[in-house]
């Protein structure tokens, strides 16, 4: 975090300055919505390695980070993108081939872990997962945890209710806090100092943002310092948490950004198809990501019609007439 001042920078510089090899990283969004994809692609382009990723159900963003071999560890609740890939393909391959270390939690547990980090407490309690293998089976063995000062010694801890049977609850599971080195989120509106307004569901972005040491914000609209203050009830993240603000229109593409654009079913379907075949996937990585200089460059290569196709209805916030039946890349 950084308190005051103008924090606007370029995406290249924001990633270069803050996302280092071995960094503990979380990204915002959920499955096919508001993933900070421009930042994900920039991380891939800069060849960053050995990331330790924290995810609930980020979906597309995490699968691309894993596919491009930027990550060595992953703590996650769900590796899928809904109907496009009920299990993300590159994620599945990486886990099956043991190219990545994985630790499983549930969505609520991951969200509580971010909340604990944001609140400044070492853990939070829940009743979720009692009696399951999420408690019993650890992806990161205890020795691995003990050797790594950035990890808690235990995955989860069961605790008898110290208030007796208060609330008719005998036992809870404690989930350890997460404080990522860096969180990257993509929001609809931000100002120069880093005040953020998210439209539609916030997912766990607010908790992820406040739990992090460094917060990078990419935004559709970059506004001057008074605009958002005129309606502060709608701003979820105050500037005191922000380190870098980057203006990236379509920064969530190919995932959706409520009120701005929908997900691109053609891109997501094509990605899921290519991901199944290593050769095709590497050609995707080469041609669609690495050979592009920037997100703008990637968008330009798709053509304006693709972006018009996913443009959101003002009223509904998504593209009402988007053809999602059998999307085919042309």
């Amino acid at each position, binding site marked *: 975090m950084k308190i005051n001042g103008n924090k606007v920078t370029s995406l290249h510089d924001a990633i270069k300055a803050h996302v280092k090899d071995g960094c503990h990283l979380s990204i915002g969004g959920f499955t*096919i919505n508001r993933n900070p994809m421009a930042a994900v692609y920039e991380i891939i382009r800069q060849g960053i390695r050995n990331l330790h990723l924290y995810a609930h159900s980020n979906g597309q963003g995490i699968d691309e980070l894993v596919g491009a071999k930027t990550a060595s560890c992953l703590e996650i609740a769900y590796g899928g993108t809904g109907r496009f890939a009920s299990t993300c393909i590159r994620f599945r391959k990486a886990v099956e081939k043991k190219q990545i270390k994985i630790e499983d939690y549930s969505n609520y547990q991951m969200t509580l872990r971010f909340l604990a980090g944001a609140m400044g407490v070492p853990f939070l309690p829940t009743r979720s997962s009692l009696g399951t293998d999420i408690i019993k089976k650890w992806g990161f063995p205890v020795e691995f945890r003990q050797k790594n000062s950035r990890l808690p010694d235990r995955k989860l801890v069961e605790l008898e209710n110290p208030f007796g049977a208060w609330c008719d609850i005998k036992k809870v599971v404690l989930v350890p806090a997460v404080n990522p080195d860096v969180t990257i989120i993509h929001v609809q509106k931000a100002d120069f100092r880093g005040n953020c307004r998210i439209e539609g569901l916030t997912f766990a972005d607010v908790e992820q943002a406040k739990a992090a040491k460094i917060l990078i914000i990419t935004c559709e609209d970059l506004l001057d310092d008074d605009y958002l203050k005129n309606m502060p009830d709608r701003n979820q993240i105050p500037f005191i948490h922000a380190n870098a603000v980057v203006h990236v229109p379509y920064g969530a593409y190919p995932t959706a950004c409520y009120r701005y654009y929908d997900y691109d079913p053609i891109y997501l379907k094509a990605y899921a198809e290519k991901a199944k075949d290593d050769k095709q996937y590497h050609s995707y990585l080469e041609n669609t990501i690495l050979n592009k200089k920037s997100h703008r460059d990637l968008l330009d290569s798709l053509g304006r019609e693709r972006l018009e196709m996913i443009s959101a209805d003002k009223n509904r916030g998504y593209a009402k007439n988007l053809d999602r039946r059998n999307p085919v890349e042309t």
Partner: protein
Amino acid sequence: MDYTLKEMMTIVAAREIRNSDIVFCGTGISMLAAMAAKNINAPQSVIFFETGAIDSRLEDLPLAVGDSRIMYQTSSNGGLLDSFATMQNRFTRKHIVGILGAAQIDIYGNLNSTVIGDYDEPEVRFSGSGGACDVASFVSRTIIFMKQEKRKFKKRLDYLTSPGYLNGPDGREKAGLPKGGPDRVITDMGIMGFDDHTRQMFLKGYYPGITPELILENMEFKIDTSRAKEVMAPTPDELELLREKCDPLHLIL
């Protein structure tokens, strides 16, 4: 009457939803079942998503629980913390029915959506819990969609992702979980319930053209079939509403 097995499954699930239910949906057929209930037999039921949308209008079928289509004209757009707290909350959780799917299920309705094979040396990796373990832990009843296959109805799960009745009638209580647990399993052949005393799965119904024997052949463990009756096929009204109101573009059907 012509209908697909997917249509049958969707309508059988929808019939289980009541007007007083708050319905937690995942992606795919579970979402479609909730929409079908709202359009056919439970117009007052409330559709709700783990991502934080409560009472979504769902003018169009979403393709994921993070789809912007669920954010339109809800009662409140929050985040994951809000929705899971609503499921764990002692007052609201009683009204919530969760609809889940999984890769494997056992006789007590425990679910695996994580791995096939050893956890450390997985043969097949699936998506993982997502919110499924949370929902199965918290809410008062769940409806589970499964394909009727031997490799899916397992004597022993490779990984217990989401709790059913765990290992018997007092399994949940001993583990510290709230009351609740699986209520129905809906497959492409029939529908199962759970015995009030043993908490073991039993066959409640089989679809027209299917026999209890055929269902048993497609399970690794044996269940009681003595209470099974033929399930009523979808009515023309049900089918029409499902096809025209819920998924006119055949995104899932």
